[in-house]
């Protein structure tokens, strides 16, 4: 047993803003095995990008403050590494692609120069060879006419080509972990399919692990071995992807799956989650999903009715539920399910 490639343990991140401290991550734990693809799904603002940027230590600080936890890469805590060592980790061991390639590609360098820079910055080889390797990588990511495109600037390219260029820079040093933050959200369906096919091919060829961040359940359904569902700075459910879709446990996951349109045409209403995602600056104590949860009332009644006399005040409103394991590798954080399904181990 070689253990996980990456293990995030109880990561807590705050932002010090003008209006006070905003808690962004409330103790996130997540591990990724070598070669594994883990999906991270959640709605806008739930903390997906903050999690990703924490791994690479790219959060702006201030305002970001890491309050606790550890991020172990092959057992070594990235949070303790000196910045110099961290630079080696970035790109070489772990690299990242972003939703909008335009913001992370340098507008004044040609695409070829940017890929080549990855090699020279890490002193892999000289300039000449770097330029040649860059063209070869652009070819590997199926950039049409790579020699010519290497001499073009990002703004001369379509969104799909820019995303290819960014993938080339991210993969150039053959990292063991690729973090892909909404890699296809800004792209059209047919281009999205091209990019996902490319990522699929690359991860198989390079035997690379991927943290695939998206708000689209369809994307993780098709590509992730395991999937984590995030809500308001916590992972509320994590499971092998098949199990998550066939037996969602957390009420939020159930609601998300039931509200997906497209299973049929016609008159059927979609089931929907009431309310909206609350603001992180005003998260109440207790379960983060409580104000939208259909089971909360049931949970209240159950505890009040004496089935469990420990709690007459509403445990959902008071205690943030911990994750419990319901099936091998299938964890969810919900008081009600814990009481109903019983069992489980923490």
């Amino acid at each position: 047993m070689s253990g996980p490639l990456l293990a995030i343990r109880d990561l807590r991140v705050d932002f010090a803003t003008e209006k006070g401290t905003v808690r962004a991550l409330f103790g996130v734990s997540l591990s990724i095995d070598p070669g594994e693809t883990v999906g991270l799904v959640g709605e806008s603002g739930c903390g997906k990008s903050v999690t990703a940027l924490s791994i690479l230590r790219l959060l702006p600080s201030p305002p970001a403050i890491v309050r606790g936890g550890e991020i172990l890469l092959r057992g070594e805590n990235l949070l303790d590494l000196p910045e110099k060592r961290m630079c080696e980790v970035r790109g070489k061991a772990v690299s990242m692609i972003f939703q909008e390639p335009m913001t992370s590609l340098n507008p004044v360098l040609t695409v070829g120069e940017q890929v080549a820079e990855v090699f020279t910055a890490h002193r892999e080889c000289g300039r000449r060879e770097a330029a040649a390797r860059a063209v070869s990588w652009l070819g590997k990511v199926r950039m049409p006419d790579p020699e010519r495109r290497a001499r073009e600037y990002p703004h001369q390219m379509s969104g799909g080509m820019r995303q290819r260029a960014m993938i080339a820079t991210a993969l150039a040093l053959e990292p063991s972990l690729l973090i892909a933050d909404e890699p296809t959200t800004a792209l059209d369906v047919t281009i999205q399919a091209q990019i996902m096919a490319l990522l699929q091919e690359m991860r198989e060829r390079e035997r690379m692990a991927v943290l695939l961040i998206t708000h689209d359940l369809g994307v993780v359904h098709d590509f992730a071995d395991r999937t984590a569902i995030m809500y308001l700075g916590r992972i509320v459910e994590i499971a092998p992807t098949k199990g998550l879709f066939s037996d969602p446990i957390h009420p939020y996951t159930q609601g998300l799956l039931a509200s997906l349109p497209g299973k049929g045409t016609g008159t059927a209403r979609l089931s929907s989650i009431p309310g909206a995602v609350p603001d992180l600056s005003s998260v109440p104590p207790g379960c983060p999903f409580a104000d939208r949860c259909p089971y909360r009332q049931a949970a209240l009644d159950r505890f009040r009715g004496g089935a469990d006399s420990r709690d007459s005040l509403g445990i959902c409103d008071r205690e943030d539920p911990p994750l419990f394991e319901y099936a091998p590798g299938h964890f969810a954080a919900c008081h009600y399910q814990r009481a109903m399904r019983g069992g489980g181990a923490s």
Partner: protein
Amino acid sequence: MSGGIRRPDAGGTLLALSNVYKAFPARKSFFSAEVVSVRAVDGVSIDVPRGKTLGLVGESGCGKTTLGRIAIRLLAPDAGTIRFEGLDITHLSGEALRLTRRRMQIIFQDPYSSLNPRMRVRDIVGEGWHVHGIARGKELRERAERLLVRVGLTAEAGGKYAHEFSGGQRQRIGIARAIALSPKLVVADEPVSALDVSVQAQILNLLKDLQEEYGMAYLFVSHDLRVIRHMSDQVAVMYLGKIMEHGPSAELFREPLHPYTRSLLSAVPMLGNAPQERIVLSGEIPSPTAPPPGCRFHTRCFMAQPVCAEVCPLLREAAPGRFASCHFVG
């Protein structure tokens, strides 16, 4: 004033666009001063049936928004005709256009920028009543509050400003504004694309309920095939300014005819094929400033033959009620 001839029986068709064209001038590239034309809508004919939903789907820049704006005369077409309730409204102007516009409304993609930040919500919702002298003052206020409650907000919302609401709530305000004058046609241009997944379903349900209640027709524009499938009775698939396929939604999703529709459907995660069996199109979407000759889709089509680069296929009835524009379909 240019009027039109009222057709005795519009045969259940509320809106009929025939052979509509629209081009915009654009600079050839970022650095160039040369002006070329973008053929945003390039000879499109579609019908929206009364009280039903026509879904318009396609990738970005294919002309959906332009077509939607032409449909309700927010934009004048370069050529073609627009008939609404049997009346030719292509060249309508002045008072006649104003009166027709009451019956056609639009909901925008971006609930953030489409609501006036300096107006109270009840005045946004009741603006049409005010303009058309239907209600003012206390009556406007009460009617606006009732409508806000109908779209899932509270009466108190009327006294607030748009920025005090979340994205989903703002879209509800936009919907209330659109239905205030009991329109016959509502163009919904990507109405849920900017919303969180868990809020999208609420808005889609609201749109369906309101359609049932008021009998409006929707021209529902989206790039999201799952949403289109859920909302539409009829579907039109657009590519580079042209309709590729068009027909009843259930049949189109069950058995797409056109190669472009087939590859689109196959690419939708979870709804289409498993990733390994996907039809992955090669190449990029060509620029609408220089659309390929012949069939617009031939540069990416997996079925293309030499003839496709030369001859533009016509939209033909390939099966009863189903239309496709491909040399090898039907």
